[in-house]
């Protein structure tokens, strides 16, 4: 049984490592920008685009469907970039919430016109890791490597806008343009990740390793290394638990992320030096 399980799980496991690589990095940006639910909003927009493609006759696995999803995501990236203002009257999360609600409702309106439309929308968001095979891992790794190179080239404005937006404005960076490029490249990743692994798993890979990195690391390289290590460790734990206890893989990995984060948090609190007691000044 062990050999057969290994044959079934090696490609999904490698895909988990690929997801860890790009998402732990993007998660550091997302947490700094305080736009935690942006991936869910962009995934929903991609699902809306793919639903439109489905209505026009293209099935979910075709490149036309992917192109529709991606184009819709670029529109979402534009909305997110244009709604950022220097003085934050409202949180960007509010805009993200509206984008999510409207794109979900629009997908329902479109799905209303197709047989099995509702199931189609659900399938777009659920994903299934076990369906992953070797060639797909290579394709996705190449795509994310390209996005990684793009982010490496643009690292200065991207990190500056994520961590110190006021400085970016002061130094004269075109913040909206860089924001659009950030969210568009983020959309490329989210659109393909969600099709593979589903919203819950993608959300976990985006947020939890980055949280671990921010909790334990001080510099960006330290946060990234901790995030990557944590994501890899949880992927191993989740996949092993799924195989050993006969559980659905995606949901098991998501729960493994939650449990491991709790353990990490407890260890973090136990090791943290106690703050000195404040005494009222006399």
């Amino acid at each position, binding site marked *: *049984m062990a050999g*057969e*399980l290994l044959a*079934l*799980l090696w490609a999904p496991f490698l895909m988990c490592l690929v997801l860890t690589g790009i998402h732990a990095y993007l998660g550091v940006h997302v947490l700094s920008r305080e736009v935690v639910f942006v991936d869910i909003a962009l995934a929903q927009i991609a699902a809306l685009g793919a639903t439109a493609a489905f209505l026009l*006759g293209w099935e979910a*696995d075709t490149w036309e469907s992917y192109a529709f999803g991606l184009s819709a995501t670029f529109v979402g990236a534009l909305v997110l970039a244009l709604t950022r203002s220097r003085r934050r009257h409202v949180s960007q999360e509010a805009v993200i919430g509206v984008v999510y609600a409207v794109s979900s409702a629009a997908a329902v309106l479109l799905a209303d016109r197709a*047989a*099995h439309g509702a*199931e*189609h929308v*659900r*399938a777009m968001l*659920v994903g*299934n890791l*076990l*369906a*992953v*095979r070797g060639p797909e891992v290579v394709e996705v790794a190449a795509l994310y490597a390209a996005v990684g190179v793009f982010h490496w080239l643009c690292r200065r404005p991207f990190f500056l806008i994520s961590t110190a937006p006021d400085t970016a404005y002061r130094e004269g960076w075109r913040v909206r343009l860089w924001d659009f490029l950030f969210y568009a490249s983020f959309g490329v990743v989210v659109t393909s990740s969600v099709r593979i692994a589903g919203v819950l798993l993608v959300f976990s890979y985006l947020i939890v390793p980055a949280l671990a990195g921010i909790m334990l690391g001080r510099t960006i390289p330290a946060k990234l290394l901790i995030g990557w290590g944590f994501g890899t460790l949880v992927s191993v734990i989740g996949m092993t638990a*799924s*195989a050993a206890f*006969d*559980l*659905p*893989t*995606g*949901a098991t990995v998501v729960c493994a992320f939650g449990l491991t984060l709790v353990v990490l948090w407890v260890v973090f609190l136990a090791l943290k030096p106690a703050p000195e007691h404040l005494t009222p000044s006399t």
Partner: protein
Amino acid sequence: MERWTKLMEPVKGAKVVAYHPDVIYFLTRFGLVQVATLEDRPGIPPSPQHLVQILRLMKADGVKVILVEPWNDFKLAQRVADEAGAKAIVFATAVGAVKGADNYIAAIDYNVNTLAEALK
């Protein structure tokens, strides 16, 4: 009806796997045997152990076809089918479920033709 029965006659007794257990009446009508379902708990994605058992069963019984409802995960069914040397095919569970199945007769027609071809 006569045409459908005639088309399915040569493949009578063939074993198939369904994604979800909702094609059993159709299979029984034409003398086909559902040996397993890809989904072991309805609505929950299959676990790795269950997929390993399905693969063993398909290889041992010479199963040639996995029937997938249009809303279920075709990509997963295709992976399992490829590893077991079988084919995954979409089953029209309702009118409009697949292209061309615009009425009930057309849906059954599609199912009979596709299955008879895949099981040859």
